[in-house]
Structures are given as C-alpha cells and as structure tokens.
C-alpha cells in the first residue's frame, strides 16, 4: 500500500519545498495578501506584497483540508519574519477551497490560474493548460487574465497527475524522471492504446512482456497522455501565447509531445515561479483586489 510501508521506495513522491523571492521587502508594504490553493493532491500557498510575489510553498494535501491549508501557509511564512496576522486578506482556491480556515473569500481555481498565469508570463497569455493532480483544464483568457472560456476533465484520472503517479509506481521510475526517461528513445512508439490509468497498467505489462524497454513503454504512455490532453485544447481552440501550469508542466516527456501534437510551443517556465503555484498566486492577487475594494468602501 502507498505510504504505509516505510521500507518501500515511493516512486510517486514529488519534492515538497518553500521559496522566498529575493529582493522583496514586506515590512513597509501597503498591502500584504495571501492565496492558498488546496488541490486534490498538492496544496500551495503564495504571499503577495503590494502585488508582487514574496514567498511560496508547495506540499502534499493530507486527509484534512484545513490542516493542509494551515501547514502549507505556516511553511510559506517560515523564516520570513511575517506572521499570519500580518496578512491582511487571504483567498482560498482549489478543490478544498471552502476549508481554508483563515481565508475570507474563495475564488474558483480556473479564475486563479488565469490570473496567476497573467502575472507570471504577462498580458500576452491567451491560453492556459492546467494539468493538476486530479483534473485537467483548458482555459482561455484576455489581456487582464480574465477567463473567457474553459473546458475541464475531472471525471477520469488519465491525463492527470494521479495517473502519472500510478505509472511511476508500476514502472519503479521516480516521478521526476518519467519525462526525461521517456525521451530516451530513438523513435517514438505508437501511443498506449488506452489512457485509462487502471488499464494502462495492464497495457504496460503487456508491452514489457513483448520485450519493450522501460523507456519505450514510458514513451508510449506519455504520447497517449499528450494526445488526450491535446483533444481538450483543440476543443477550446488554442490562441498564443500558450502556457502550461500545474504539476505535470514539469514533465518534459508529456510537454514536448503535446507541443509537437498541437504544433505550438508553450512559453518556458520562469525561474522564480514554479508553474504549480499559478493558482495560489492568482488567489493572492484576488485577495489584494478584494482588500483594496473593502478598504475603499469603508471610506464612503
């Protein structure tokens, strides 16, 4: 069983970490706001100082959403000298957004990802693909990061992070190496015929039985995932600039094949910003707006 057996290697496990953006001073700031994105698999917190990203953290979501929100927020604050009480407004987003104890409002993760992508990559972003732990969304937005249309698959684990975790465990390949390993083939094989995360397991075993290498099987799996996600994007229509957020944006094996399938390259990830925290950044920016609005109203 996953997570229960201490001696077994957990290939699905991805790194949890925190980061402070250098050169941002918070003590004299006008507005300090926060965004917490409690996803189905990972929780993210972002601290925003006068509209600039100051610090963030990313950790696995536990069985309780409030605990996960508290934990990830404490971790983002760690070492910054900032306390939870210094944050004037927090917005919750993601699957567990209603369970963020210290959030004043909630905003859907679709709006937050668009807003966050607009912040990270700038106003030229028009299409966002968010590949998360348990769902996948194709989002279109305007130059202000406002959502104009979206499509979502949240019914099926294929094409989501959970699906990749299952394959990592099955193939005994650490999850961060799935992408690079899958690219280590001379020529891409036919995609695995099923994208179902459960059947992909038997399909992969059948291929290994035929004598395929690990690299070939992972290539076939990543291709299948890329073509599945490409369908979602084609249905909504892709306009440049195109970016990818969410955890799977770090899987180069899927991203490269997706770019090839749709014929459009995604803007590269920016050093300071982990693409998995776009939703938390968006939530933090909405929090700043909402604080400003409430503050302005109180003057009337």
């Amino acid at each position, binding site marked *: 069983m996953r997570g229960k057996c201490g001696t077994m290697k957990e290939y699905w496990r991805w790194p949890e970490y925190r980061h402070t953006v250098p050169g941002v001073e918070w003590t004299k700031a006008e507005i300090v706001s926060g965004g917490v994105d409690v996803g189905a698999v990972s929780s993210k917190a972002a601290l925003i100082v006068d509209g600039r990203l100051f610090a963030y953290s990313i950790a696995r979501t536990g069985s309780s959403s409030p605990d996960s929100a508290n934990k990830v927020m404490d971790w983002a604050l760690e070492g910054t000298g900032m306390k939870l009480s210094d944050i004037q407004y927090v917005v919750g987003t993601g699957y567990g957004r209603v369970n963020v104890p210290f959030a004043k409002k909630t905003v859907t993760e679709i709006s937050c990802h668009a807003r966050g992508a607009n912040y990270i990559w700038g106003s030229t972003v028009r299409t966002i693909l968010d590949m998360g732990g348990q769902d996948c969304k194709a989002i279109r937005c305007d130059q202000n990061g406002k959502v104009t249309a979206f499509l979502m698959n949240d*019914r*099926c684990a*294929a094409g989501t992070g959970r*699906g990749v975790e299952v394959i990592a465990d099955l193939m005994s390949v650490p999850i961060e190496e799935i992408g690079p390993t899958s690219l280590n083939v001379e020529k891409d094989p036919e995609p695995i015929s*099923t994208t*179902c995360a*459960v*059947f992909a397991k038997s399909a992969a075993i059948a291929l290994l*039985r035929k004598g395929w290498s690990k690299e070939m099987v992972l290539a076939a799996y990543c291709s299948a995932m890329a073509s599945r996600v490409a369908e979602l994007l084609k249905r909504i229509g892709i306009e440049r600039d195109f970016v990818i957020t969410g955890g799977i944006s770090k899987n180069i094996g899927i991203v490269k094949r997706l770019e090839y399938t749709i014929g459009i390259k995604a803007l590269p990830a920016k050093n300071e910003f982990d693409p998995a925290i776009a939703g938390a950044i968006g939530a933090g920016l909405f929090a700043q707006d909402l604080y400003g609005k409430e503050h302005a109203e109180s003057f009337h």
Partner: protein
Amino acid sequence: MKDNQTLSKGQIPCGFDQKAATEKLVEDLLQQSNLSLADMAYVVSTGAGKNSSPYPASEVSMVSADALGANLLFPSARTIIDVGAENSLAVRCNEKGRVIDFAVSDKCAAGSGTFIEAMARALEVKLEEMGPLSMKAKRTIVMDSQCTIFAESEVVSLIHEKASKADIARAIHDSIANRIASLARRVRIQEDVILVGGVALNLGFVNSLRSALGVELLVPREPEFIGALGAALTRPK
C-alpha cells in the same frame, strides 16, 4: 465439445505467459476426456488474448461467441450483456444467435469487473463477499466518481464518514450497473436478456443491474464459460 455437448471445461488465470497457461489448460482438459489434440476437428479461440492463442488457426470475436453460446443455452436470448474483467459488451442477436447489433466498452476500467475488484480492495473485503455484503444494504448512497482511481478515494472517504460497508458495497454495484445499463441501451434491449461473464456471479451486481434496466435477467449457471462455449460452437470457414 462433441455434437453440441460439452465434454470438459476449465479455467486458469492468464498469469504472465498467457500462451503457456492456455496450453496447460487444454492439455488438462484433453486428458480428462481421454482425447488428444489430433482428435479435435477444430479449436477456436476468443477473448481479449485470442491473438496470442497457441491455436491460431481460427478465432472468433467475443461478440459472436457470446451470441452463439447464449443461444445454445437460451434459445429465447435476444440481448446478451457480458461483463468481464477488463471489458464489457452488449449484443443483440436473432433467434439463430446471429449478431444484429453490439456495443463494447474496453477503454475505461469503470465499466468492468476490475472496478469492483479495486473497490473491494479499498473496502478491505474479499471479492466474493462483495455480492452478499451489498444485499444487506439499508441505505442508498450515490457515488460521484466514475474513474476507478478517483472512486477508490471516494470509498475511503465514505469509510471515514462511517457509512456501513454493506451500503458502500451496494453503492459500488449501483454505480457500475448504471454504466453497464447505458452501454446495453445502445443496442436497444430486447428480451430475453442474458447476463454472462465472470461478474454475473456477483449477485449484488445482478440485483443492481436488474433495477437499473428494469427487466428480468437470465444468468446461466456458469456465466464465465459462455464465450468459450460460443467459440466451441463456431464452425471455422
């Protein structure tokens, strides 16, 4: 099989080497009937692994095999629903067991026996206990997830919410029965309806499917053998 009479039958898990497993099974069966492979007029293979059969001379689709097999046992059969480990299918046939229409689901584990197996693991209940357990359900719970992977987490949450195992087992069977019912409706159901495949052994599932379809279901005594029976009845061209 000899002149439409079954001489011997058996089953074996596929394991890693399907071919070897099949060869061993056939050898055992021949021995039981004091026959050799040379006595066979034909050997016909069917099922998901029919292409890797050690007897490649002739094969028949699961759809045709199910129709023929069901027709032998139930001449009144017009619709056959087959729920196996990794796929499920619905077949409408005529009085001769000829296929008129069919629908297959083999792209998603949520429509096959694998779904119940995975849920039984999450519930920590033996697969064969799932049926009897679900018959004791007192309350109807509707599951939100279709995907097997997501449904596993849902079952765990239901356990945490203190729902009884019996009620959860029923919810699991209702959930897959609803999906099989929509598959079956695609071929326009005509009675009599025969339910075959290994999952037909699960009475809890049979009950849920009967309510979902609103028709009576006939289940042969050994529903998992209908495909093999149909293959044995197939005359190669």
